[in-house]
């Protein structure tokens, strides 16, 4: 029960309260770049959700088995080389490189796959799929997971990691879809010239961030509510 509560909290935390885009400012590039049309924005959101889940899964695995201090794989190598079982081998310095490698290759893989087998989908993403590689949101999710895998007060397992990834991806999709709707509307508006494009988009994002700040405290509220309901 407690884990379930925790998973729910991580999920809504990442999707609404600490929305990746509107609170953590990650994934701003596609948020500004691919939010001109609702359809493409939604597609982009789905692509990000997909990639973020895959790469978080892979990265969690890497971290758990290889990178974290005391991970089994290096320990096994160390011990088979005759090292003592006491020494912990910490390869976490490699985590950034490995993460970005995993992300880059999985995105490229997905890209090639989609291009080959789903040409219409590929066409609507077009140039944006490679953009996912340099999309902070993906790396950020892995880093967040890493943080919680090093933090002794709250050790995350795979379910938590995936809850964060999924929540983050869905939160991103929500934000970018709303943004795209608004920007389609803005095309018909008389926005001052200097603000057109990124300027007004950022201001809209700012107002959306204000609106999303309404969710502040929901984590706590849901936690207490679930607590009292389950009691």
């Amino acid at each position, binding site marked *: 029960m407690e884990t379930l509560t925790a998973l729910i909290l991580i999920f809504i935390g990442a999707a609404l309260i*600490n929305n990746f885009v509107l609170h953590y400012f990650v994934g701003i590039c596609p948020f500004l770049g691919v939010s001109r049309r609702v359809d493409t924005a939604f597609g982009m959101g789905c692509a990000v959700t997909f990639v973020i889940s895959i790469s978080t899964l892979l990265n969690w695995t890497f971290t758990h088995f290889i990178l974290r201090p005391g991970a089994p794989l290096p320990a096994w190598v160390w011990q088979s080389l005759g090292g003592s079982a006491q020494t912990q081998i*910490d390869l976490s*310095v*490699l985590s950034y*490189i490995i993460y970005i490698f995993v992300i880059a290759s999985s995105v*490229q893989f997905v*890209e*090639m796959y989609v291009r080959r087998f789903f040409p219409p989908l590929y066409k609507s993403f077009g140039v944006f799929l*490679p953009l996912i590689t340099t999309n902070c949101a993906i790396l950020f999710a892995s880093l967040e997971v890493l943080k919680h895998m090093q933090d*002794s*007060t*709250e050790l995350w397992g795979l379910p938590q990691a995936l809850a964060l990834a999924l929540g983050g991806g869905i939160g991103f999709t929500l934000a970018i879809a709303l943004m795209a709707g608004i920007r389609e509307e803005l095309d018909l508006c008389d926005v001052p010239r200097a603000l057109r494009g990124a300027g007004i988009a950022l201001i809209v994002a700012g107002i959306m961030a204000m609106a999303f700040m309404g969710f*502040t*405290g929901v*984590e*706590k509220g849901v*936690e207490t509510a679930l607590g009292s309901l389950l009691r």
Partner: protein
Amino acid sequence: MTQPTPGKGGYIGQAWLVILLALLYGGGLAGVENALSGKIKANKRAETYSVIPDLVPGSDPDKTDEIMVRGENAKEGLVYRTRRTDGSHVGWVLPAAGQGFADRIELLIGLDSGVTTVRGMYVLNQRETPGLGDYITRADFQDLFRDKPADRPLAVVKTDPAADNEIRALSGATISSESVAAIVNRALANFREPLRALAVERSPGNARPDEAVE
């Protein structure tokens, strides 16, 4: 995306530069890590250790040791056992965390060795509203927890405290204040008994009579 021309030398042959660089960078990084990890660890340690004398008056940070303690909820937690310079046990520093108004709050709780009194409280990390909830990081708020009883839950009130386990809420930030108190209460509930047991078992001789467990 340009297509690689497979064939000559195969994929690996083409990627020699990448592989070479990977080896190079990997080694280099490990070197950097080797050189700096001591300092980074020290930094992290210092973050906690620098406040230890303040959290448990009389303790010497250099004499502090870290132990893993199994709490009432069956989860293991890190606890700092603090000692005087002469090595005698003065108390505990208990890291704790929980949900605040906006985000997680992480804090350290200083306790006497018998876990009867809260010696101090220090907020390590928080993201409460600037100018409102973030006043929990102020010394005057943290000082409110000094010398509060550790055997009963602390209560947050909006008026001047009447009982000794009451803490006056920050005005306009009752929720943050309550969250801090709740985190302290929960940590105490989890670790009060195990720590007391430890105190009796490990260092009965060191305990001053007034701190001794009944």
